């Protein structure tokens, strides 16, 4: 797929169960489910709107109030869910591959807290109002936290999954505290950040997505470019180096990709944890230890999870809504606990 792809007989591919066709078929199946959920996301809401109205809203626009609801609210919500979900899933897969840590998740490791804090500084203190302005703050925040957590969570023997999670929780707690302090000192910042902090894909304007899409595209290309080397690195740095993998370059590119994704997703939706934790595990369970397939499945499975969680949050407490970040925490925390309780956390 890319110039960085490993030789076809790379170890790690030899153990992969199932033929290529089956994995492709699974990918197509996931795509179908995703499309169904996208449609469901537009159709299901606090008020019932007939499918014909949805059709008209898209192709025969008029000033009908239900059409407004579709065009200005539900459709952007579905698109934001799709894009943010893809970004979160790929971030999770990348960071788990990079750290060889089955517990790694952009939320648990504090990446979204870093992005949130940087956005709070940009919006609240520096008065940046333009998404393309604070997008860079979000990415820088995520990048700094990534480097900090990598430094704190690695020992000489390699990285320890729990140590890394603890480092993330601690960095995240500090940044959240500092962010809260900033917001309390500066009520304007509080007002600007309030709706965004719960982690939701509702009410986010579509323009955000268009502005961030190019960065996501770059990150996607980078992710698949390093999937081969990351595959080789799963067996250990020394072995990978003997196969000609450039360790530092792979790490740097992977970090660039995942911070672009984590920063972008947080800039749009606010902090949403656990999606990046769960999805790569499911992907690995389906396709085995092959990074490129894991990445591909994660990109499709994560928006499925996010959209399903969002729809669930809309119908459980009608007419109230539960923000999607809260639903994913309730689904994801038990998964984290199950992963820890298994004798050997799933290997990478």
């Amino acid at each position: 797929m890319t110039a960085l792809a490993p030789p076809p007989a790379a170890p790690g591919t030899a153990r992969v169960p199932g033929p290529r066709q089956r994995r492709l078929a699974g990918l197509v199946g996931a795509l179908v489910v995703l499309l169904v959920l996208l449609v469901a996301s537009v159709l299901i809401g606090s008020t019932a709107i007939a499918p014909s109205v949805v059709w008209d809203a898209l192709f025969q626009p008029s000033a009908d109030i239900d059409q407004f609801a579709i065009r200005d609210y539900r459709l952007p919500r579905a698109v934001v869910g799709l894009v943010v979900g893809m970004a979160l899933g790929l971030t999770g897969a990348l960071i788990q591959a990079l750290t060889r840590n089955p517990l790694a998740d952009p939320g648990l490791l504090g990446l979204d807290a870093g992005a949130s804090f940087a956005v709070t500084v940009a919006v609240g203190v520096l008065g940046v109002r333009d998404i393309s302005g604070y997008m860079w703050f979000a990415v820088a925040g995520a990048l700094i936290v990534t480097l900090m957590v990598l430094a704190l969570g690695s020992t000489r023997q390699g990285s320890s999954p729990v140590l890394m999670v603890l480092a993330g929780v601690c960095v995240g707690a500090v940044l959240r505290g500092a962010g809260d302090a900033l917001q309390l000192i500066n009520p304007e910042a509080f007002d600007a950040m309030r709706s965004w902090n719960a982690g939701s894909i509702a009410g986010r304007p579509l323009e955000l997505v268009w502005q961030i899409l190019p960065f996501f595209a770059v990150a996607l290309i980078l992710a698949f470019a390093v999937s081969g080397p990351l595959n080789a690195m799963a067996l250990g740095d020394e072995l990978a180096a003997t196969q000609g993998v450039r360790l530092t370059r792979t790490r740097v590119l992977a970090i660039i990709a995942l911070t672009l994704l984590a920063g972008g997703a947080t800039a749009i939706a606010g902090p949403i944890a656990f999606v990046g934790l769960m999805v790569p595990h499911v992907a690995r369970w389906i396709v085995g230890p092959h990074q490129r397939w894991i990445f591909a499945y994660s990109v499709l499975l994560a928006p499925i999870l996010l959209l399903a969680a969002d729809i669930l949050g809309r119908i459980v407490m009608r007419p109230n809504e539960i923000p999607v970040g809260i639903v994913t925490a309730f689904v994801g925390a038990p998964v984290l606990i199950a992963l820890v309780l298994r004798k050997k956390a799933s290997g990478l």
Partner: protein
Amino acid sequence: MDFGQRVLVLRRRRIAVRLEWRSVLACAVLALAVAGMAVLALMTGSYQLSAGQVVSALTGGQTGLVHDIVVQWRLPRVAAALVFGASLGVSGAVFQSLLRNPLAEPGIIGFSQGSYTGALIVILVVNGTYWQLVGGALLGGMATAVAVYLLAYRRGVQGFRLIVVGIGISAMLGSLNTWLILKADLKVAMAAAAWGAGSLNGVSWHKVLIGGACIAVLLLLAAVLSRPMRQLELGDEAAAAQGVRVAPARLGLIAVGVALTATVTAASGPITFISLLAPQIARRIARTAGITLAPAAFVGALLCLAADYLAQHAAPTPLPVGIITVVLGGGYLGWLLFTEARRRL
């Protein structure tokens, strides 16, 4: 156990108290520091007072405005910081000793989130009294403690599993709390959110006395249990051989530790990281081999006072004390991870 330190033995009739000299000395120095910090806190405010004025107001030598400022306005807050800080310090010491893990902290392993959830449900759903709030926080903390303990239990509780299970439960309860606040009336929600940051704003004598009475009883229980606690640190079998009834002792310690955190949470909202920091700092100051309760209590009180002082006077707007402790404590935790935990985990 003899840790090779000089020991002071006080005997009166049939009761003998063995005290380590270094602990006694450390407690004395810490008590002085706490007193100094308390006087500084009583001096500072929109109406500045001198140390002499504060001391004479405390000893009854002042009347009128100065007396009111010191005794009615500032003293409840200082007393609350002292008592709550000591309570958190001891609570952390109990958990770190029980789990034999320097990272065990009620905040990290989810108990304080559970207390917060219990209290929030009382505030938002029942709209209860202060006592119901205390009850809710206590119940929430206990239930979370039991849940985390049971989930992490697999032929014994290992520190690492407990912490990650705690992080998971904590994340879940945290999002439940966010949602409870989002769903509530704006006015109630704002009050609850301010309280959720952990603040000593608006503590009255009434609250301090109620909370202080609960905490005093719990501290006494902790002192009684401190001997079996030290013996449990050596392992269950060794403790049992020394005549400790292991299961009841551990259950009692967990109950006291959770109750200490929950009482503070009910009164002021979750003030995190003091329970993590205090026992560790105390251990370094007193140079004891294990975790000891009295120095941890003093360090907890000092930390809470100092953090609340910073919270009130360092920023242009008074902040909740919990924000200061999160930032300081998180920084310390990072350092701890960097130096110590990597050897122990």
